[in-house]
């Protein structure tokens, strides 16, 4: 059979979202790939220029819908730097709590999708089942399962409900043995190793050259985690290890993500203990009224204060479940940001697709792309 181009997407079970992988095939062998994105481009960066600083957080949840908290955190750090606001410490812990639960939830979602890609049917249900427990926790303090709008520029919206920490500990106790079960289902199977070992290999220096970050670069043995390298929020106070693997293949990425979930559980236990013993305010008190300080009605007169606020730019980078996300917020003194720019890790990871896909077979496309963990929302923004 001669070579042919096939379109895998935008509606294809492999894509887990709305994008298109154009593949040139020789029989079953991949000769070339050309990812095509933008089917979910909603112009978040443009709309943000038309929104108040806190309203942008609404868009952040929808930007990456499996890791909404990570993106809220990313944006709030940048906006706080641009507006010269410092959040209270308890708010920082609450953010880390949300972030790390989000990391587990996002990785569980990835697990559910990834095992389907290699044809395992039941773990999809197990991953979704355990993810729902975390979403229940979210619901108890934010009121939503996926789109939280919980962070604020200058802190978080509200404190935890009573009894939350006990509930969180219960969930963590439930999750810890589950990870071993997942491993048994995947790593315990010879077919899994036959399918995933030495597949989608992208060595460390290629990762650096092509801007790949996150579990992909850590699976290549490069110890790169912004939570350790440039600790933001309160990660400096927390004790955890960076998950590493050295095989640079799909199995390596699997191992890294599994270990990250275990490390997140470890972080969360510390955070939950801290939250038990350190009550305090959860939002900065010196906020301007137009930014929605607590108990201050936002009215027309509130907006007048905007002129008293200094100009500034804010740059932030956080370790999102998919990799390294960055935000750049330009504050020109108005109540809207002048320009917001986001760097999505998956955007860069997909753009390097040619490097880790050519030469494999068509049946390898789903596991490889599954191991990249594509979230189209943040690719297209």
């Amino acid at each position: 059979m001669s070579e042919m181009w096939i379109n895998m997407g935008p509606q294809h079970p492999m894509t887990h979202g709305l994008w298109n992988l154009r593949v040139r095939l020789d029989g079953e062998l991949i000769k070339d790939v050309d990812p095509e994105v933008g089917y979910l481009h909603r112009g978040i960066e443009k709309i943000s220029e038309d929104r108040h600083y806190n309203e942008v957080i609404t868009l952040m949840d929808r930007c990456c819908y499996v890791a909404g908290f990570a993106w809220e955190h990313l944006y709030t750090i940048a906006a706080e730097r641009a507006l010269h606001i410092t959040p209270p410490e308890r708010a920082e812990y609450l953010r880390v709590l949300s972030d790390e639960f989000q990391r587990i939830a996002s990785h569980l979602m990835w697990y559910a999708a990834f095992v389907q890609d290699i044809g395992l049917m039941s773990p999809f249900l197990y991953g979704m089942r355990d993810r729902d427990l975390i979403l229940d926790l979210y619901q108890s303090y934010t009121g939503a399962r996926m789109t939280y709008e919980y962070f604020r520029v200058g802190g978080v919206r509200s404190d935890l409900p009573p009894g939350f920490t006990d509930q969180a500990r219960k969930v963590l106790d439930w999750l810890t043995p589950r990870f071993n079960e997942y491993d048994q289902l995947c790593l315990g199977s010879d077919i899994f190793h036959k399918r995933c070992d030495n597949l989608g290999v992208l060595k460390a220096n290629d990762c650096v050259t092509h801007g790949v970050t996150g579990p992909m670069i850590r699976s290549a043995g490069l110890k790169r985690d912004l939570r350790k390298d440039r600790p933001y929020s309160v990660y400096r106070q927390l004790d955890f290890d960076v998950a590493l693997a050295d095989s640079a293949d799909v199995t390596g990425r699997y191992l890294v993500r599994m270990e990250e979930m275990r490390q997140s559980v470890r972080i969360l236990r510390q955070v939950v203990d801290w939250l038990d013993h350190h009550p305090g305010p959860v939002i900065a008190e010196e906020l301007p009224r137009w930014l929605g300080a607590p108990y201050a009605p936002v009215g027309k007169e509130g907006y007048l204060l905007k002129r008293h606020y200094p100009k500034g730019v804010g740059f932030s980078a956080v370790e999102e479940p998919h990799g390294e996300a960055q935000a750049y917020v330009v504050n020109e003194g108005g109540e809207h940001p002048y320009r917001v720019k986001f760097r999505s890790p998956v955007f860069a990871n997909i753009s390097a697709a040619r490097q880790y896909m050519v030469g494999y077979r068509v049946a390898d496309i789903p596991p490889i792309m599954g191991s990249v963990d594509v979230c189209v929302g943040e690719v297209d923004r």
Partner: protein
Amino acid sequence: MSTVTLYSVSYDIASLILHILGFIIPPANAALTNGNVITGLAVLVFGVILLAASMLNTILLIWWERKLLGRIMDRRGAMHVGYAGLLQNFADGFKLFRKTTVQPREADALGFFSGPTAYMVTSFLLFGILPISSGWNSGILPLSLLLALAIFSFAPLFIFVSAWSSNNKYSLMGGMRSAAQMIAYEVPLLLAVVAVVIVAGSFDLTTIVYEQQNYWFWGPLFVALIVFVAGMLAEMERIPFDLPEAEAELVEGWNTEYGGMLFAFFMLADYLRALVGSILVVLLFLGGWTMPSWVPSAATSFPLAGIFWFMVKTYIVFGLFVWVRASLPRVRTDQLLRVGWNRMIPLSLLSVFLAALLVTVKCVWPFGCIPSAGT
């Protein structure tokens, strides 16, 4: 009548119908109650019963798979339609019957329509051959096993024809994978069957079952059983060997372009083949409708006990296939073919050798002695 057989039941029904007709239309009484006419109608009734029974069983099998999968996955499966979702598959079938059948503009009409139809018809044909219980078969066919496997191996042709004529790249790749896979696994499958035939000394399925009165073949012919089950999984295109329908990369595989009734044909034929596969495992290795001697005779001698135990065994075997489906990932084409040619064929040759050994030594310790029949 002392024993109830499928043919006797259909003969009774046919004769009843014709006698009632003759009573209603007195002038035609003599012509209608003629023995030849009754026999002719009996054959028709026989066919209808077979068709209905296999269809019902297939639909029940789909239900059984859905519920079992649901339980393994921590959920319930179909619950809403009928008791515990028993009517769900009937709803699916009627719905698909009503749907428009869309023929893609570039598709080849002849292949597009005849492929699924032929696939389903050949799958139905198998039920005329397989004995369900003693007397419940379509008569003594000395080579029924061979015939069953021959019809079973028609499928790649029809799948490939329908995939090719869909004019869809995914369908085409699915069809080619399907053909390659079925041909690769045909050989070990047949060799595993040869092992059974050597021990049983016959190609007739009924005889093979009778040969298992003393002990079932799964013990002494364990290697053959493994090869046969693996080959059957590949022939039935179920996980871990469901590459032609690999949903992750090939959308719906070779039936991507099929909707409506033609898609229903495919689904039905797939499960018919799954049913036949389970039945063959039961017939060849698990003693068919016989039960071991330690089972109390009350459990094996009630009316239609043979059919009952046979169906129980078949559904358990199919349940094992479902269990495999729920817990294993899918393999890749090249790995599948390599395993097929490099591992399965030597294994099946080994099983043939073991069978020959068994026939020579006659007795195997935990299982007992093979009967003198077969010589």
